[in-house]
């Protein structure tokens, strides 16, 4: 874990959970900023200055950006959170860059989710294949179901996770969700963006929610109003750093 030294878009100090190998870096962080601030408006791209990384440049990875929006109606509140994915890369040993896009500047504050792997090329060896483990999801009454493309690829220090939501029993559609992910290592703790779901107020980007993973337990309380709209396919795509709790407890 390390803290950022500074940034050029008016966010506070950012705490990164990290795994750094000699040829790639996995970073997890969640940071909120106000796109109306002068620093953000002046910058060409978002730059975060950090202590020395193990790599001095990287290829492109994905960083998610999300805004939170609630509409109040006579019958209650409806959630219209949205967002997209931005390109991000390591520019040099001390600088992480995120592309600047104006799409959500009117919808701030914005949240950036680093659930990202930064790799390098021409490393003298080809890609090393991992092992996919389909996630076994357990809920009370089996109310929440995921597609067969819901899986993890587990490594000693990090995990890749892809979730694809399939259906939910009607009685639980408006309830907070909780499920156990059997194959998820217990030492993964993260807030993970959930893009997808319909969003009638933002039909360019559609919805984006957030779930939480901790001790194999998945929770998700806030979901866009059109989460189950046909063809909007809510999902999660994340490289997650393991805390090594299991190793420490031995």
């Amino acid at each position, binding site marked *: 874990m390390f803290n950022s030294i500074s940034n050029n878009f008016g966010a506070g100090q950012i705490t990164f959970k990290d795994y750094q190998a000699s040829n790639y870096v996995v970073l997890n962080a969640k940071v909120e900023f106000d796109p109306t601030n002068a620093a953000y408006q002046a910058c060409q791209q978002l730059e975060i200055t950090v202590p020395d990384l193990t790599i001095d440049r990287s290829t492109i990875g994905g960083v998610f950006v999300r805004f939170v929006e609630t509409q109040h109606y006579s019958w209650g509140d409806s959630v219209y959170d949205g967002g997209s994915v931005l*390109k991000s890369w390591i520019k040099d040993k001390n600088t992480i860059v995120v592309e600047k896009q104006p799409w959500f500047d009117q919808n701030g504050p914005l949240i950036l989710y680093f659930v990202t792997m930064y790799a*390098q090329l021409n490393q003298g060896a080809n890609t090393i294949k991992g092992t996919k483990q389909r996630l076994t999801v357990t809920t009370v009454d089996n109310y929440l179901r995921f597609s067969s493309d819901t899986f993890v690829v587990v490594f000693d220090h990090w995990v890749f996770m892809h979730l694809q939501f399939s259906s939910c029993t009607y009685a639980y559609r408006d309830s907070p969700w909780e499920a156990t992910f059997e194959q998820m290592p217990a030492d993964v703790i993260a807030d993970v963006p959930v893009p997808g779901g319909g969003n009638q107020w933002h039909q360019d980007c559609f919805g984006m929610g957030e779930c939480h993973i901790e001790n194999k337990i998945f929770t998700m309380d806030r979901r866009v109003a059109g989460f189950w709209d046909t063809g909007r396919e809510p999902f999660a795509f994340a490289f997650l750093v393991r805390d090594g709790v299991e190793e420490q407890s031995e």
Partner: protein
Amino acid sequence: MIALPSIAFGGFSGSAKGVTARQVGGRSVLSVKCWPTGAATGAQLVRRASLKKISKSWKELTSDQMHDWDRLAGTATGQSVFGQAAQLSGMNLYVRLNANRAMAGEPLMANAPLHTVAVPNVEYEQVVVTPELMVIGGIRHQPDPFKLVVKMSSSQSAGISNGWSKTVIITPGTEDDWGEVDVTHLYLKTIGVEPMPGEKVFVEIYWLDTSTGFTGMEAREMVVVTGESPYQRRVKATMDNLDPTEESHVSSLDVDFSTGAPVAQFNAQCLGHSNVASSEVYLDEQLPSEIIGTGMCIGRSNDSDGHINAQSYLVYMYNRSGKSQLTFAHRGGTYYTHTEVFGTGIIY
């Protein structure tokens, strides 16, 4: 021919008929006008045109700007002549640095650079030249604003030991591609013929600081052309690898498997087809069997209707009959045919 001029030539510079005069150390020196040998390459023509334009633009500078260039020229030295470093005038330096910048596509620099940063020497591991492959490998990367300039000769008889005057610019300012510069296409386009095995190719490489126009010390390599090379090209799938006999559904493609990590680097502009939520790509060669599997990467819609939503894609990889197929199959998010997939993606 080189001669000290009579007093009649004092202050004279330029060429007339077969004679060129220039100022060196306050004195005029005459020499036989040099004419280029062989047909000019595209890069040479651009350079000559820019030299003329840059020289003319000197007169448009203010006197302060000219003084600044003169001052900088006082600290810089030109090419060595007869063992002595030649003195440069402000105008010489202005033309030289701007010509270097123009070569790299940079605009004219009217103000002399305030600070000069030492330009690094090129560090590399090998230069490989075969009839089918010309690559410089193991280059120590230098960040922006440094760009690599590569000059090469056509293949020369094995008996020739000095062919440096035969080199022409192959690439006027390129970034290394993760420690590698593959100039095969550029060499063939510029020189026009493949190098002959057993002959020599003269190679000059140097870094150019595109912000100032200064260049680093050139590295020189006299490479014997071999028929084949053990040099291993990175495993990539690009538009150059597409099978022309098959219909592919991408307008750009760059998938790189050289990470040495459990991910590949994906980059493709998917176009979709036939009302199925996928784009297929057919390669003219098989991918190595050890990387054949399934990938997963992120995508972002970029259609003409302004959709910008995130998506996820499975990437199925197959080897069949000496060829490969990649299928970018939509999974998460709302599908649109025009989607850019990018970023590191797991392979399993």
